[in-house]
């Protein structure tokens, strides 16, 4: 039935890296309303499919299309990656969430890790358009996993690339150049960090001593995406917030990342947090 609202047809499909895909999908109403920072909920089968949130990476209101970028890691994203131009997505709901607050802050550092570069792109774009000096730090495990480099380069006043193996850019974690920027005078007016939870956690930890305000965008487990289940809730400054309506962006210095990472693993009972922490110390790695 979702299909009768809008066609939800796939107009274009690109493979950005081994597991990351970009798709342009017909969704005129969402394209018209969406603002930077907002997301959609997608479902591939209305009877048994799960509802997953994906950021709207770009939108073309004139064409009536939105672009989604996703990593084929779960049941639904893998199935989505297998779909082709012309196929229809059963359900697309949105745009959801509170848009990013955009204004001329001065200098904004945008930090993107792995697939997090996709949701960061429209925000960096909007920050630039608002008159900010935009410094972009992009991180990935290796050269192959780096996405949207050209797009980001087009926006950035300064672009810093980091990889874990040094196959391109600096061989370091994104927190290293972030720290250097914080140490400069004047320090950045705002940092926006989007990536794996552990990367955002360490970015927030990096900027905290310098009191650089730091926004993070959380991608929790969701069901409805409209505030009716509370499954997406996180602890922010000792208060409970619903990511789908109060977020997805929050003050990174107030988010309880450990609790959030635990909740993300709710359905992986067998895995221990121990394992997750080890993976976790490597920023820039897709969660």
């Amino acid at each position, binding site marked *: 039935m*979702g299909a*009768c*609202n809008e066609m939800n047809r796939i107009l274009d499909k690109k493979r950005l890296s081994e597991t990351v895909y970009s798709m342009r999908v017909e969704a005129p*109403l969402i394209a018209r309303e969406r603002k930077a920072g907002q997301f959609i909920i997608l479902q591939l089968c209305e009877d048994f499919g*799960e509802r997953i949130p994906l950021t709207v990476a770009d939108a073309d209101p004139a064409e009536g299309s939105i672009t989604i970028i996703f990593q084929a890691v779960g049941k639904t994203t893998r199935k989505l990656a297998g779909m082709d131009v012309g196929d229809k997505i059963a359900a697309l709901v949105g745009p959801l969430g509170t848009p990013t607050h955009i204004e001329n802050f001065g200098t904004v550092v945008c930090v993107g890790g792995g697939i997090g570069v996709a949701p960061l792109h429209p925000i960096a774009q909007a920050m630039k358009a608002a008159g900010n000096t935009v410094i972009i730090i992009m991180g990935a495990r290796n050269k192959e996993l780096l996405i949207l480099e050209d797009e980001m380069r087009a926006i950035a006043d300064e672009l810093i690339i980091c990889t874990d193996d040094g196959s391109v850019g600096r061989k370091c974690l994104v927190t290293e150049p972030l720290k250097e920027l914080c140490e400069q005078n004047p320090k950045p007016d705002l940092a926006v960090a989007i990536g794996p939870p552990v990367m955002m956690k360490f970015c927030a930890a990096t900027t905290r001593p310098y009191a650089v305000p730091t926004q993070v965008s959380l991608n929790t487990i969701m069901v409805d995406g*409209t505030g*009716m*289940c509370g499954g997406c809730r*996180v602890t922010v400054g000792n208060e409970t917030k619903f990511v789908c*309506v109060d977020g997805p962006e929050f003050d990174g210095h107030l988010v309880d990342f450990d609790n959030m990472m635990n909740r993300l693993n709710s359905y992986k009972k067998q895995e221990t947090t121990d394992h997750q922490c080890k993976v976790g110390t490597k920023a820039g790695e897709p969660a």
Partner: protein
Amino acid sequence: MTYIPAETLAAEAKKTWAEVSAKKEPLKPKDRMAIPAQEMPSQDPAIRRSNMEEVALGYSAEEARLEALRCLQCTTAPCIAGCPVSINIPGFIQAIADGDNKKAIDILKESSLLPAVCGRVCPQETQCQAPCTVGKALKSVDKAVSIGRLERYVADWERENGLMEIPAIKPNTGKKVGIIGTGPAGLTVAADIRREGHDVTLFEAFHKPGGVMVYGIPEFRLPKAIVQKEIDTLTAMGCELKTNFVIGRTRKISDLLGEDGFDALFIGTGAGLPRFMNIEGENLVGVYSANEYLTRSNLMRAYDKERAATPVFDSERVAVLGGGNVAMDAARTAVRLGAKEVYLIYRRTEVEMPARVEEVAHAKEEGVIFHFLQNPKRILSDERGWVRGIECLRYELGEPDASGRRRPVEIKGSEFEIELDTVIVAIGNDSNPLIRQTTPGLETNKWGNIIVDENGKSSIERIYAGGDIVLGAATVILAMGEGRKAAAAMNKMLANS
């Protein structure tokens, strides 16, 4: 209560019916009172604990006619006053007693648009059945005529025999009405407005219409096919349904009334914002709102582990916090999903529990363990940040509060722990703020409920509202009643404009 198999009940009813119907003389009140109250046949508790199928199986023809004959047809008909939509109860019951089910359903439908649903989920014991003369005479509301079961019986009879008709639609008026939310309030308004010949579009945020009847109330209490049938009737009447459409996000109220050309709107978005207790540990892994737990299981079909992509916890020991229908549904769902032990923790005592008595009885039969006069103090974490238990306090009943119920007061130092892996919070819902926040000028009260006049009209011209978004979390029948009232006012407004 001991479980009596459906076959035994049916056989007994057959026998009694043969005796009663053989009587030549018309039945006297004494004879009617002597007919045994007909139990609702149900699935064996031992079996139904592990399936999602409906628990209550519905009356056989003999059971229905016997139960109908228990009605004294008293002229005062206190039952009608007890019904929020004033169904002609003695009228439809007499028709069943006469074996004229068609007449019975016609009488029901004069007042109720969702009899198959209401017969199953209404709290009859506090509404129509509370003042029933038979119950009073027999000194127990349990012995009142089972009006709800009879309502269900005729509605099922009509549906199962393929007799549901598409209501006649008046010629097209060219007026356009938008309905936001497809719970009982929205569905009722859609039917009443479409009948007058206006165009109707229903907007639903979820991928399936039906509201709480689909995402909240489980299959074992209200089969989804029944709700779907009501939706099918609406689409057959020419109502347009737009699912995956969030008003306030995909389109705003002002867009609908402006650019999109709607002449009037009805907001029936329900009370969908789960309340939490604000106690320590509430965000640990393993703590759910009942909304989330039930939505995963019902709407997303997580119980069908083979086919559904949406997971739900494989819980061993579950505590449900609360005492309403939502809490019962969550506890009984946990049983069916395979939990070994399910506790229901409620602050007051059994008599104060707002849940339907039948659900409480069914929950007990299914092995849910009730802890009354207890309240959680905090949820305990293991070293990984997962639920390991709950710390509760014992309570006693003190002085009556403003609602007249005796207020539970904590007993100091009575803390104790229960070991658990899952906690489900079912302490109520508030209204979702999305529409309020995106519709300037729409007046709401301090709980966020939309303020309406006696016709269901909001503070903005051409916008009406009803159901839980106005009443706060209430009932299906009240949502339907409010919907009918608002629809009547909207039809009048549209006719005059």
